[in-house]
């Protein structure tokens, strides 16, 4: 009976794969017989394939240094002065107003909100061979400082959350442009057959600016990010991934029956590549059921790994991020949480202490874990927010536990690791009070150009024609920051 159903030669891979997973022999063999058709599919001209199967993996412009990105988004805007950028002058004059020469340069609206300079209450120490300073809030991340490339001269455009998030994610503060992750999928396709290529993890709600952060805008909707909140239990993480009223063997046999009909249908309609692609796509869907569930199942991780990340919201999300990256997801974005948790206008000291405490161990664990698996080499890890914070307090309060810092876009800090960036270096600086970029300004367009470069793209050539013009992530801007490349 089995041989009757599968007269086509089997490819070794699919046979092994399917036999391993099959509950019964029949279904698996019938299914894998269909995979013989795959050869036709892959032989089709690339252009045709792309228009029909927009997620098919494709090569970038040049050999990439980074094959995937994990972007740890500290949404709200973390204070650089309390984390990665000590400012002796601010410490020295803490409690005093900004020198008049500096405050005179501020715009009027800004001037009214600026309080006294506020030296960080947290101690900085030098770490590693590179000797980069890190605040006591990140003791574990600090151990990895020789892997970090800290950029201290980030330049934003508009000092508010929504424009900052959109600029960081989509390259424009206001207009509806596709997100970096969508561009990535558009350019590279999906490496994973079984998982979405662009996954956004955000526990407990959505970040400010919501789904626009991972929108595809005018790119086809299939390139949009898939938002998954692993903390909200009971909801399906990927829609329609499984059904629980059928044994795997039965479903396999059922899919085989559908594919039998599909082959007959296709044979009567020669020449239509789409019909092949759909047969292929159903095979993928079938495999996705197992893999998609597996990626989110932390029970599959050894105890010591789970412990290293910690059983916390941040720990679980970072670990899932690694599992996804490992399975070929191109771009995983991990927001700290819904809303804008790092937006510490008041109560900065207790709040940032907590935020760092929550994320320090998981981030350090992620760095170690990626390194141990040899994945850090071609995984670009990015840490940062949509802006930074002022060196000054925001309000008149003297109570150190109530003090906060305002939004600041002129010289904030992000760091990167792995994926072709130079480890153990600091790039750029701000003036002595941290009010403005002093040297080596990095605009978001520059960051995007650099990220695309690391992923194998010339940012000027990754374009999409819409509404009569060729759009690109960096619009007419963007400089590759060669100085930070390894």
């Amino acid at each position, binding site marked *: 009976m089995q041989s009757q159903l599968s007269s086509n030669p089997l490819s070794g891979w699919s046979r092994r794969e399917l036999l391993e997973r099959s509950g019964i022999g029949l279904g698996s063999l019938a299914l894998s017989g269909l995979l013989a058709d795959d050869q036709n599919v892959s032989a089709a001209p690339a252009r045709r394939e792309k228009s029909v199967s927009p997620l098919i993996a494709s090569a970038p412009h040049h050999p990439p240094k980074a094959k995937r990105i994990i972007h740890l988004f500290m949404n709200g805007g973390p204070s650089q002065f309390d984390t990665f950028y000590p400012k002796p002058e601010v410490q020295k004059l803490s409690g005093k107003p900004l020198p008049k020469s500096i405050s005179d340069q501020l715009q009027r609206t800004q001037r009214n909100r600026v309080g006294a300079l506020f030296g960080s209450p947290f101690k900085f120490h030098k770490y590693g061979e590179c000797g980069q300073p890190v605040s006591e809030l990140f003791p574990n991340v600090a151990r990895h400082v020789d892997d970090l490339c800290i950029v201290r001269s980030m330049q934003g455009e508009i000092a508010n959350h929504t424009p900052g998030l959109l600029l960081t994610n989509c390259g424009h503060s206001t207009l509806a442009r596709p997100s970096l992750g969508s561009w990535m999928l558009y350019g590279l396709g999906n490496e994973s057959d079984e998982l979405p290529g662009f996954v956004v993890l955000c526990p407990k709600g959505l970040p400010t600016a*919501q789904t626009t952060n991972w929108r595809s805008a005018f790119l086809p909707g299939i390139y949009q990010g898939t938002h998954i909140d692993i903390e909200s239990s009971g909801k399906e993480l990927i829609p329609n991934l499984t059904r629980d009223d059928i044994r795997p063997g039965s479903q396999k046999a*059922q899919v085989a029956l559908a594919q039998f009909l599909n082959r007959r249908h296709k044979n009567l309609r020669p020449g239509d590549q789409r019909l092949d692609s759909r047969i292929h796509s159903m095979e993928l869907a079938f495999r996705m059921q197992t893999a998609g569930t597996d990626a989110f199942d932390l029970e599959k991780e050894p105890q010591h790994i789970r412990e290293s990340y910690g059983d916390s919201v941040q720990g679980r999300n970072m670990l899932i991020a690694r599992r996804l990256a490992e399975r070929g997801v191109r771009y995983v974005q991990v927001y700290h949480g819904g809303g804008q948790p790092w937006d510490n206008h008041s109560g900065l000291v207790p709040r940032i202490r907590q935020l760092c405490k929550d994320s320090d161990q998981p981030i350090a664990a992620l760095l170690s874990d990626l390194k141990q698996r040899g994945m850090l080499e071609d995984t670009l890890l990015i840490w940062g927010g949509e802006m930074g914070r002022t060196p000054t307090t925001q309000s008149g309060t003297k109570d150190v536990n109530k003090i906060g810092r305002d939004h600041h876009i002129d010289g904030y800090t992000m760091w990167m690791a792995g994926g072709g960036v130079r480890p153990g270096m600091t790039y750029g600086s701000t003036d002595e009070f941290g009010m403005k970029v002093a040297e080596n300004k990095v605009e978001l367009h520059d960051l995007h150009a650099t990220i695309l470069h690391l992923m194998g793209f010339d940012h000027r050539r990754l374009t999409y024609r819409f509404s009569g013009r060729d759009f690109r992530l960096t619009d007419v801007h963007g400089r590759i920051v060669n100085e930070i490349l390894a």
Partner: protein
Amino acid sequence: MSNLRIVITLLASLLLHPAVGRAANNDKQTAFFEKKIRPLLIKHCYECHSEEAEERQGGLLLDRRSGWIEGGDTTKAVLPGEPDASLLIKAVRYSDENLQMPPEEKLKPEQIKLLEQWVRLGAHGPKIDLGDSEFSRLGDQEHLFGQAEKHWSFQPVKTETPPEASNGRWNQNGIDRFVFAQLTENNLEPSIGAEPRTLIRRLTYDLTGLPPSMDDVEQFVEAASQDRPAAIREVVDRLIDRSTFGEHLGRMWLDVARYADTDSAYRPDTRTPHYFPFAFTYRDYVVDSLNKDKPFDDFVREQFAADLIGFKPGDAEMAALGFLAAGPFANRDPLESLDDLIDVTTRGLLGVTAACARCHDHKYEPIPTNDYYSLRGVFASVARVNSLDEKKQPLVPGYEPSEADLADYEKKRAAIEAKVTKAGKSKAKGNNRSISQKIRETELAELLLFHPGAPARAMRVIDRPKPLEPVVYIRGDAGSPGDAVPRRFLKIIDEDQAPFPDDSSGRLQLAEKIVDPKNPLTARVFVNRVWGYLMGSHIVDTPSDFGLQGSAPTHPKLLDWLAADFVEHDWSIKHLVRTIVLSQTYQQRSDYREDGVTADSQNKLLWRGNRKHLSIEAIRDSLLSASRQLDPTPRGHAGKLWEDGYTKRRAIYGYINRFNLDPTLRAFDFPTPVQSQPKRGESIVAPQALFTMNSPFVIDQTVAITETSEFTQAATDEERVSALFNLIFQRPPASLETERVLRFVELQSRFTKPADKRRRASTWPLVAQSLMMSNEFQYID
């Protein structure tokens, strides 16, 4: 960058541009430029301001004299002889905080002195001036208007006489004569007509979005064997008259109109979208208008200005204003909302991309930035009403809920009102909005949106008491107002550009300009949309872009003939649809032919029909239809598409959350309704297959189909297989297919253990689902 390379580039340019090569005016000055100034510019400026780098930031080029004399977006960069008044000098001096060039680092004092000297001496240019080039002309509106004079879509629609076709059957419909002529020119023959079984399925789907019944098929096959043309005419008339016609074609328009039941943002504190509880009356207006065959020009007038052409609150046509009122960005971002209205108007109706002219003159199309702000003035003079304000949104007639629904609605409403009253003015912790407000925005809005007993109101707009006099925003920045412009139509279509009157927004005048029969774009754009919807490929492949950058028509004369015929027949959409589907071109077989594939693999010349994939709406409707679960009730409040308690009405009545588009819709190429959608693509991705494999909605239908009388009356397994094939494919199974299914059934029976207490899918629903998962179910030949 070496000087040598520059020279080579210059020489190359010289060869490429015969008009180039103006002699330098003064050898000494030129030498000064080449020796002292050019190297400076190359080193510090050309990366962003030269043709060689393909960069023209701020609109400024510094590789030719015209570049600095004419300047960029702001103003002239150099005033010869006046260094202190020259922007370029100001920029290099770093005296203005907002204008510092080069941005990386200030030039050395001696370099700045050189530049000052150069300007003082007259800012002479290179020995070989690049002059005008394709690159420097980007955004040159004079040049683009010149191009537009020759561009097909801006020419009046020509009255074309269809050429004679040597083939009799292809000589009867104007469409066929044009298509046949182009096929003949390319040594191709058309394909023969599709088999009756294929054709009836194609017609029923294309005209109603639903499959034919088995009876429909058999009757048509019989009738076609007697008199095929008569049978086709008869069935087309019947299908076009069904109310399902508007429900199907209406969806095409809703894609263009970016229709949704919510705004594009959500409320972070309640985590709910900004609901538009009454947007559905606009959707119904669209469906009804198509079913009534409302002339397209009236259809447009009403959507822009129903309230200004005599309709009053209480008239059904007031719902047409939802076109303007139910767009995105209503609640959060007024600037984006205006941009959206300009975009949906110009791309949706005219096929021009005017929204690109927001920050500067359009780089590639004859759309000066002034035109953008003229249109903006119209829409900025129109006020939206709060989508939850029931008093300002008039009732729409024609909705009579059942008594039970009404009673249930009133009971629920009273309960919510009581909660609102009880909450009073108290506020939630850490939030400055009152609890009662939140209840209104969530519970009440959801009740209004979803409850069948809730009222139907028109989501209207109102002209502001005084129209706004627009000003241009330089570089799109509201903080840099520039010249005032009148509210008026696009220059490229309306050369005189008479200003719209002072006493209204100009919405009506705008609509009249759009549907003016002399407007070369509107009819062409619309007939192309309908053509593409029915044929599976468009005459102009960029349906929302007919501009200089858009695709050329595959059949320009046919497009003009269709457009003229459409207007001549009083903009009748049903006439247009009938003309298309009665053509031999439409009725061809969709099979591949070796000669056709070789000569024209993409079927641009239409040597065969296109095999079309069903939309997600048609797939959903077909699933419900096959299981006999489809509720044909038209109009009314939206229902959930997939979740528990989903509606069994057609998908067009499903709830569309613009803020967070349903993942199933997204997986099936349903457009994100944040902007007007030109056409849908067909992507093939695993989530589509997962939907048919695992969606509870699909599984429900697989069970329901085994409870239909057709299935339960079947006495044997063979008859059961036939019943399922009839219900799902509208054809009997081949013997090989029956055999294969029976083998599956037999195998499954071995696994069904009565002792197994877990819920198990039974065999026949699994069979039905295999059919529903198959390509045959989802493709129209």
